[in-house]
C-alpha cells in the first residue's frame, strides 16, 4: 500500500488486543483505512464493535496496561505514530490530533472550571498568546456558548448537556487540529441540539479545514455530515464506501441490515427491519466471517474463513464472500 500525500491519516493492518484474565481479545483486528485531508469519515457499527478502541488506538491512548496495539502502522501526516515516543505523542495530542469523547458529563472534570479545562490545550502546547482567559472566551464564542465571558468561570455541572458538548468540542478544536475524532458526539443529546451540534462541527470544519472521523452507531448522523462511511463489525472493517454509494448500493449484508433498520421520513414500512441475533462474543470469535451466524445470505464458505477485502469500484470495498470471484 503506497502512501498518499492527500491522506491525513492512514491505518495499515492495525490490531489492538486486550490481555485480560479471561483471555486475549482482539478489539481491533487487522484494520486498515484512510482519511483524506478535509474529509469527514463516518465510522459506523454497533456498540462494542471496536469503534472507540480504533479511535483510542489512533490517539495511542488504549487503556493501559491491558490494552496494546500489537501490530500495524498508524500513519498520521505520513509519519508512523507507532514509532513516536510518549512525549512526541503528547505534543501531537490536543494540537494536531484531537478527539471528542461521547458523554460531556463524564468527559469533563467536574472539579475544574470550564475555562481551566479549555485552557489546557493552549497551556500545555505553549500556544498562549496574550490573555489565556480571553482565548478561552473566544473559543466558547466560537462554539456559540452564550455569554462566554461569565460562562468561562462556570463549572461543568452548571452547563446544560448541549452546552457541555459544545465546550467539549471547543477543547477538541482549540488548536485547529489536522484530525478530529468525534466519538458519538451527539448520542447524549436530544435531536434538536444534536442537529445544532453537527451543524456547528460542519461550520468549524469549513473554517479550519480539519479532517473528521465521526464515530457513531447512528446512520442518520452520518448522512448529515459525512463524505465517506466505514462500517465496522466485531473488530473489523467490513465495508468502506462514499456516502452516496453506501446508501444507494450497500454491499455487505450487515450494511444492508443497518440501512434497513433506519426509519426514513416519508417512506412507510409495515415494520422496521432489524438484524436478528447478537454480535459474537469477543472471547469466542467465529472462525469464518464474523457476521455469518446472523447473515441470511451466509453459505458454507462463510463459516470457514474470513473473507478478503474486495474492491468493488473506486473507493468502495467490502469484505464478504459474495463478492469474491473464484
Amino acid at each position: 500500500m503506497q502512501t498518499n500525500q492527500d491522506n491525513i491519516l492512514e491505518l495499515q493492518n492495525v490490531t489492538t488486543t486486550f490481555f485480560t484474565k479471561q483471555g486475549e481479545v482482539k478489539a481491533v483486528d487487522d484494520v486498515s483505512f484512510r482519511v483524506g485531508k478535509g474529509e469527514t469519515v463516518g465510522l459506523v457499527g454497533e456498540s462494542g464493535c471496536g469503534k472507540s478502541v480504533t479511535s483510542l488506538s489512533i490517539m495511542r491512548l488504549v487503556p493501559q496496561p491491558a490494552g496494546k496495539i500489537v501490530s500495524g502502522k498508524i500513519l498520521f501526516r505520513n509519519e508512523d505514530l507507532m514509532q513516536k515516543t510518549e512525549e512526541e505523542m503528547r505534543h501531537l495530542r490536543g494540537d494536531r490530533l484531537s478527539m471528542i469523547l461521547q458523554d460531556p458529563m463524564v468527559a469533563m472534570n467536574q472539579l475544574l472550571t470550564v475555562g481551566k479545562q479549555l485552557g489546557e490545550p493552549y497551556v500545555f502546547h505553549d500556544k498562549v498568546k496574550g490573555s489565556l482567559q480571553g482565548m478561552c472566551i473566544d473559543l466558547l464564542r466560537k462554539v456559540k456558548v452564550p455569554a462566554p465571558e461569565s460562562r468561562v468561570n462556570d463549572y461543568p455541572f452548571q452547563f446544560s448537556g448541549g452546552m457541555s458538548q459544545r465546550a467539549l468540542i471547543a477543547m477538541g478544536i482549540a488548536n485547529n487540529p489536522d484530525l478530529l475524532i468525534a466519538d458519538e458526539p451527539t448520542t447524549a443529546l436530544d435531536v434538536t441540539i444534536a442537529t445544532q451540534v453537527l451543524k456547528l462541527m460542519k461550520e468549524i470544519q469549513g473554517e479550519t479545514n480539519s479532517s473528521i472521523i465521526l464515530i457513531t452507531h447512528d446512520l442518520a448522523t452520518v448522512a448529515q455530515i459525512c463524505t465517506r462511511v466505514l462500517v465496522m463489525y466485531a473488530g473489523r472493517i467490513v465495508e468502506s464506501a462514499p456516502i452516496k454509494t453506501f446508501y444507494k448500493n450497500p454491499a455487505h449484508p450487515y450494511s444492508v441490515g443497518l440501512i434497513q433498520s433506519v426509519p426514513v421520513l416519508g417512506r412507510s414500512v409495515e415494520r422496521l427491519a432489524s438484524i436478528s441475533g447478537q454480535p459474537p462474543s469477543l472471547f469466542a470469535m467465529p472462525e469464518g466471517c464474523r457476521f455469518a451466524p446472523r447473515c441470511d445470505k451466509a453459505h458454507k464458505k462463510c463459516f470457514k474463513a474470513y473473507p478478503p477485502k474486495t474492491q468493488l469500484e473506486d473507493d468502495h470495498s467490502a469484505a464478504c464472500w459474495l463478492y469474491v470471484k473464484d
Partner: protein
Amino acid sequence: MARPRMHKARILVVFAIAVMVLPAITDALAADDATIKVGMRYDISTLNMLEMKLGSDIPAILLMNQGLIVPHPETGERIGLLAKTFQVLENGKKIKVEMYQGARFHTGDPVTAHDVKFTYAECANPKNSNMMAGALDEIEEIEIVDDYTLIFHFWEAYAPWEELMWIGICSKKYYEKVGPDKFRSHPVGSGSLRFVERRIGEYVLLEVADGYPLYSPKGYPGESYSFKYLKIMTIPDDMTRLAMLETGELDLVGEILPHQLKRLNGNKHVKIKKSDQVPSLIGIACLPNTDPLMMDRNLGLAIRHAINRQEIVDKIFLGEGYPLYLYATKAELGHDPSIAYAYDPQRAREFLAKSSYKKGMPLTFTYTSMVPNAPLVAALIQKYLQQVGITVKLQQLEEGTAATYTRNRDKRLGHMRLYQWPGSRDPNLRLWLSVLSTSDYATATNRPRKAEMDALILAQTREMDKAKRAELIRQIHEIMEYDAIGTRLFGLNMIYGMSDRVDYTWTPKEPYYPHLQRIQLLK
C-alpha cells in the same frame, strides 16, 4: 492556569513538613551523662508530700523531703535523720523528739519543730486525702517545746510509732507563701535532692542539692554523690522498661519478674541484684461471707496441705521466692521460719474427708491481674486442690471490681481469693485491716476465737516492749494457724537490674525504692 495551583500544593507540603519536624526540634534536649535514669511502672500522682496518694509517689517525694527517721541503708533498721534523739515517755503515750540543728530547706530556711507540726497537721487534714491520714489519727497533738524539740502526744500508746516518723517535712513558710498549687508544681523540701522539673506522665528530674550532702547521722555511713541529676521516668509497659534497661536508656529498673530474667541475663551490660527482704506476700483468702463452709477448719487444713508452695515458686517464679506459711514475710516483725506445713496430699484428703465439704461442690476461686502471673498461679492451685478432691472454678476479676467487691463483702468475690499484700514493714496495719473482726476488709468476721483475737491485736498495738509485742504477734499467728481460714503461699524476691555504669543496693525491709540517692555512678 493549571501550574500556579501546583505551587499552592507545594507550599502546603512544606508547611506540613515544618509542622511535623518542629515539635521534634523544640522537644530536643541534649543527653546528659551525669544523669541517672530510674524507670518506674506507675506515674507519680503528686510531688506534694502533704497530699501523697500512692506508693509510687513515695520515692521522688522522699528524695526531696527528709523525715524524722530513716531506714538504715544497710540494715533497714530505723535511725534518726532530722531527729537526733527519741524518748518514749509515759509508757508510749508521748514521744519526745530532739531535732538536729542545721538542716535547711532548699529555700535556705532552717527545718524546725514548727515545720514538723505543720507537716503532720496537713497530712492528717482530710482535704488533702493523704494516704497517711488514717494512721495519723493515732496522734492526739504535737506539742512544740522549742524550735528544735517537740513532743508527739498519742491518744494511747502506739507501738508502731516509728512508722509515722518517716513523713517528709515540708517548709511551713514556703507553703504558706506560695499556696498549694505552686507547692504541688514546685515542691521544696530539705532532702539531698532538689526539684528541677516535672513533665507530667513523663519524668521528674531531680538535682543534687549543693550544700545538702547525704545526711550522715550516727550509724549512717556518710558518702558523696557521684552524679548530678536523677531522673525518675514513668515507663508503664514492662517490656519497654526492660528493653530500655538493655539499651542503657535506663540505669535502674525494679520489680523485674523472674521469667523476664532470661533475656537480661544474656546482656553483659546489665547487672541483676535480688533481695528477699521485701514485705510483699501472696496468699489465698478464704471468704466465709460467701459460704460459711469456708470457716470449716478441716477444709482449711486440707487446702494448706494440698498446695505445693515450693513447686509454685520453682515452676512459675523460677525459684525467685520462698514458700510462706505465716502472715508475715521475712522482712517483717513476727516472721517465724519454724512454722511450715508439709505438702502432703494424703493428709489433705484425710482432712477433707473430715470436713463438711461435699464432693463435687464447686468452690469459686477469684484472682486479679494485680498478682504477678496470677492466671498461672490460679491454674496451679486449681490443679492441687482438684488432686485432693476439691472442685475449683476459676474466675478472673477486673481489679477495680475486685476492690469494690472486697469492700462491700460482695458474694461475687467467690469462696477464695488470690491476693497480694503490697507491703508495709510493721504488721500492725495489716492486722487491723484484714484480721480484726470489726474491720471493713476482714475476711473472717466470725472466727470462733474472735474476742480473743481482737484483744490480742489491740494489745500488740499498745505494747511498747518489742519482745512482749513479738510474743503477742506470735499468739495471733497461733490462732490464725489453728483456725486455718485462708493460707499464705509465698513471698517473692525483689529483683532489680541496673546498667553497668551504676551500682545500687536495695535497703532491706523497704517496699518502695528506698534511698535512691545512694546510687553510685561508676567511673
